[in-house]
């Protein structure tokens, strides 16, 4: 009898990309969450890169140590970085409680998921609250979209005097205006993301309490929302560096 030699083309392929199985071994929703986050990272990158481009294009820029130096309820001035340090700590902390919720979900421990989700939501609310205080503080000083403390002044000396507290080097009306616009736009967009995250976390908490995941047998939803929440924390790490440190 003839021996049949199977041609290379006719061999049954069994590699990860040959069909019949999930090559990434990830659930569809989780992949889509990752792709959404990648696209969202592009949006935030574009914002922050524009901030950098503006900074490079201006001969002078606002001194972060001078504009952010109050701690609400404790010190009106002279304490740069302290308040934003507290905010950063809150957000990192709520990221940790989120992973702990995911970890509890892997063990199908409903009670622990509920506990850590509540802490995560509290952290998020605290952060948004701090953000609101920061915004209102700057707003009282005269910064807002399309506005800085010297807006409306005509006399060059008066403009320089109004902006003098926020600059170490030369004073520029345009630089102060661009800083103001970009600060409120970028932290606003981030704050919007945090708010959406809190909402999603609350929905997940309610679903956990309703035994939705318990009946489904998997707490994968907690993981997917967790990805979003960590991304928000990740963006803040960059916003913190570029607005407050550099």
């Amino acid at each position: 009898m003839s021996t049949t030699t199977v041609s290379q083309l006719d061999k049954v392929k069994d590699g990860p990309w040959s069909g019949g199985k999930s090559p990434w071994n990830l659930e569809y929703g989780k992949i889509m969450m990752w792709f959404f986050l990648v696209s969202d990272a592009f949006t935030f990158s574009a914002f922050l890169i524009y901030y950098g481009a503006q900074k490079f294009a201006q001969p002078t820029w606002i001194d972060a140590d001078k504009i952010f130096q109050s701690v609400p309820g404790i010190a009106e001035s002279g304490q740069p970085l302290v308040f934003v340090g507290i905010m950063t700590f809150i957000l990192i902390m709520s990221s940790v409680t989120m992973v702990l919720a995911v970890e509890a979900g892997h063990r199908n421990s409903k009670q622990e998921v509920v506990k850590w989700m509540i802490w995560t939501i509290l952290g998020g609310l605290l952060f948004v609250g701090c953000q609101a205080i920061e915004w209102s503080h700057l707003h009282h000083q005269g910064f807002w979209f399309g506005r800085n403390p010297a807006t409306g002044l005509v006399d060059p000396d008066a403009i320089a005097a109004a902006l003098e507290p926020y600059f170490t080097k030369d004073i520029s009306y345009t630089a102060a205006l661009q800083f103001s616009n970009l600060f409120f736009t970028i932290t606003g967009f981030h704050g919007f993301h945090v708010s959406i995250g809190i909402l999603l976390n609350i929905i997940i908490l309610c679903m956990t309490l309703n035994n939705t995941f318990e009946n489904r047998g998997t707490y994968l939803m907690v993981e997917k929302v967790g990805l979003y929440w960590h991304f928000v924390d990740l963006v803040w790490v960059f916003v913190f560096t570029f607005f407050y440190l550099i």
Partner: protein
Amino acid sequence: MAHHDHIATHDAHEHGDGMGKKQIWQVFFVLLALTALEFLIALGFVHHWGILQKGALVNTIYIVLTLVKAYYIVAYFMHLKFEKSSFIVTCGIVFIFIIYFIVLMLVEGDYLLHHFQEHAIFPNK
């Protein structure tokens, strides 16, 4: 549907061994230490003691520390390190465009600084 459930449960199991409670807190302390280091440089070295000046060196240190923090968040908290390598490449490789965009926009900003400020305006007759 059955297939979907299979992936979901398999997914959950595989990732169970990825991050234990101990490891989560380890990553937290790394992030905390890196942030504390940033504050030490900004408040201590630059603001109070004046050992370092604000400028390229300090900014580079901040950016490197930020990228390390970002790595820890994405790799461990977001669990990307434990996914299939093809998925890591898929999500990561697109950021080449972002690096290109950064270079592009900073060069552009620098150009505007030097050429736009003294840009002469000619009267339109």
